[in-house]
């Protein structure tokens, strides 16, 4: 008989983080932990609903006795401020560790708990700048561009949850708590793809290059209802090149037979501005009368790597996601709220977003 209990059943989490840390508790809650979220803010934005679904929301506790009572029942504490702020709030990691030696304190902070910038003020935008992701995004002739949606809380959250579960493993197998000191600046720097290695190995400093690689056949192309993203080459030999040529020719772009010429096999040619412009003319001539969904369907059928640039509304109507019952509607703070499903599906465990009862009412499945 399969035991379907959630993987983190019986784990109690106290989440006193700022918005920088709130995705961590959300992930732990989806996996079955009971998360008490201390939150005084009155606003209930869409972001708040997503980040706090399933948590038991309570007002800030006053005094260390109340805090200690909550921590006495918790295996994991989540904070997301620098060391001076933590001290001021009575959340100093070393001090809490002395009082609660079995506690895993997931101390997310903008720059880490140590070092000369540990107490620097920070925001999503400035941490994206400090960690190096901002420098890679945007058009070369414009200012660097922020990723949508406060990604630092996602970047911090996925690493912090990984670290929390490693520390929980130690806590449960060796009966010892500890501090997880996570620097969001470092977590962002961990996300810059190969930029550090480009400098180290080839002395090249990668800079922002707009919407993608400058190579004919790859990138964003306009169609009737928006944009599609096509991958026809990433250096080396082009991908599904004959299929792309046939697709365009059969679609009435007779001049696309020129894509059969030998030079299109060469990345050096495909990376020239002329090649990029020529391919764009051919492809957009073909795509301008078709929708994202039509291009995606017919391109994929030919083995071409093409994807729609989906809007959130597109996603809510996406046939693949609907067929898989991806979206979940749960009560968040008493309001039925549609959420993305969990990032993963467990065959033998109940995992996914849980309802949040109105404040003060506890959590229910």
């Amino acid at each position, binding site marked *: 008989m399969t035991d379907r209990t959630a993987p983190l059943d019986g784990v109690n989490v106290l989440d006193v983080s700022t918005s920088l840390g709130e995705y961590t508790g959300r992930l732990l809650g989806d996996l079955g932990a009971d998360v008490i979220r201390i939150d005084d803010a009155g606003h209930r934005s869409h972001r708040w609903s997503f980040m706090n679904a399933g948590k038991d929301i309570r007002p800030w506790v006053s005094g260390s006795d109340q805090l200690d009572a909550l921590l006495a029942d918790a295996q994991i504490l989540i904070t997301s401020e620098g060391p001076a702020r933590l001290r001021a709030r009575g959340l100093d990691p070393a001090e809490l560790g002395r009082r609660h030696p079995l506690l895993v304190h997931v101390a997310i902070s903008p720059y880490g708990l140590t070092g000369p910038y540990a107490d620097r003020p920070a925001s999503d935008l*400035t941490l994206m*700048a400090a960690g190096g992701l901002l420098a890679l995004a945007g058009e070369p002739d414009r200012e660097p561009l922020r990723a949508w949606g406060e990604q630092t809380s996602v970047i911090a959250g996925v690493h912090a*949850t990984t670290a929390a579960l490693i520390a929980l493993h130690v806590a449960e197998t060796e009966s010892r708590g500890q501090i997880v000191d996570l620097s969001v*600046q470092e977590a962002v720097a961990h996300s810059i793809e190969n930029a*550090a290695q480009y400098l180290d190995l080839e002395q090249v400093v990668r800079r922002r290059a707009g919407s993608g690689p400058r190579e004919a056949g790859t990138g964003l192309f306009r169609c009737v209802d928006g944009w599609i993203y096509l991958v026809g080459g990433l250096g080396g030999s082009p991908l599904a090149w004959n299929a792309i040529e046939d697709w365009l020719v059969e679609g009435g772009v007779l001049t696309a037979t020129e894509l059969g010429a030998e030079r299109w096999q060469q990345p050096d040619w495909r990376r020239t501005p002329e090649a990029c412009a020529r391919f764009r003319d051919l492809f957009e001539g073909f795509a301008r009368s078709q929708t994202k969904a039509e291009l995606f369907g017919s391109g994929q059928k030919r083995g071409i790597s093409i994807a729609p640039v989906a809007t959130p509304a597109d996603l809510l109507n996406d*046939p693949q996601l609907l067929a898989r019952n991806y979206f979940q509607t749960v009560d968040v703070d008493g309001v039925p709220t549609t959420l993305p499903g969990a990032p993963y599906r467990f065959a033998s465990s109940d995992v996914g977003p849980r309802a949040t009862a109105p404040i003060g009412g506890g959590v229910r499945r």
Partner: protein
Amino acid sequence: MSTRLPLDGIRVADFSWVGAGPFLTKPLADHGADVIKIESRTRVDPIRSMAPFRDGVKGLERSGYFANRNSSKRSICLDLKDIRGRELALRLMAVSDVVVNNFSPGTMDRLGLGYDAARAMRPDVVYLEMPMMGTEGPQRDCRGYGLTIAAAGGLLGLTGYAGGPPVGTGTNYPDHVPNPLHGAVAVLAALRKRRRTGQGEYIELAQLESTINAIGPAIVAAAAGEDVGPVGNDDPVAIPHGVYRCAGADRWCAIAVFGDSQWAATRSVLGAVSWADYPELDTVDGRRRSRPLLDRLISVATRDWEACRLAAALAARGIAASPVQHADDLLHGDKQLRARQHWVTLEHPVMGPAVYDSSPYRLSATPGRLRSSAPILGADSRDVCTELLGVSDRTYDQLEEQGVVG
């Protein structure tokens, strides 16, 4: 402090390749798990052939893109199409706690290495697959890369200058953030349940579904009937909030000002402009109404500042600010990353000393450690086969000669 690593004793049979899978198993390896990469000499991991290369010279053992995501791991080469290679892979599964792959749907089943085969060898195995669209559904066979998933998952379309076309993050973001690390979370959670119940788990991480969580708030908003689109560097609360040009070639400072008293402090740091002449900028609402003027004046004030000095001066007054740092700043300039020893240099037999990311977190009692540089293709084939899988040296030699292992 313990020298024992926190995941000592956990073994991972890692069939994953290219981008997202190896970044899932890296944090496990760097915290002590024995991660054994199963590679092939006939179908070499494409990322071994992706730039950057040591000194710009191509070679399977020279890619920094490959190296950085494969620290602390071992590599064996098996011909999985040969029945003897498959048998060795199954024997490896039998002694592994976790099996990971990111092939397209059905590939592992066709090789005879799917979940049912793994479970027959190891009933409590934690088995994770990461197909792009999912193992089921009308689009299960669609193909793509990291940027395809960013497009299909909504992040690309939302990240752009206000009113402009999509721009995105400039990286294969899904391969570096949501997909590998949601995967690591899932594996660790499943191991925790196994500890308590003895039960294994099959986990499907559809990369599309994982990536959509990175824009979760946009889904909530769209489902509530709101339009959501690109907003550039704007923020719903902070103003000014943007990236401003500073002295030098392509140098910028990111600044986020929350509230009017922070704005007063910002003005006094910036100087240059006679700010008292613009009383309309004194309030949040006024600054929103006069946004073009505000940004123009700030740019006038920042253009003679060095970005680092401006950020430090603003930070000293409590304002969130940072220079926009590129790789050279991160590796050589940033005092904080240096103090925290974020970058680690590991000696590699072909690449020599090369720079790796350490984990962005430290566990105070049981910290992780990058134990070794990325493995040479098949470097550990003999050790793993003879010491772990019970193959005699003589049999190994024969299998190697016939190209089954090596």
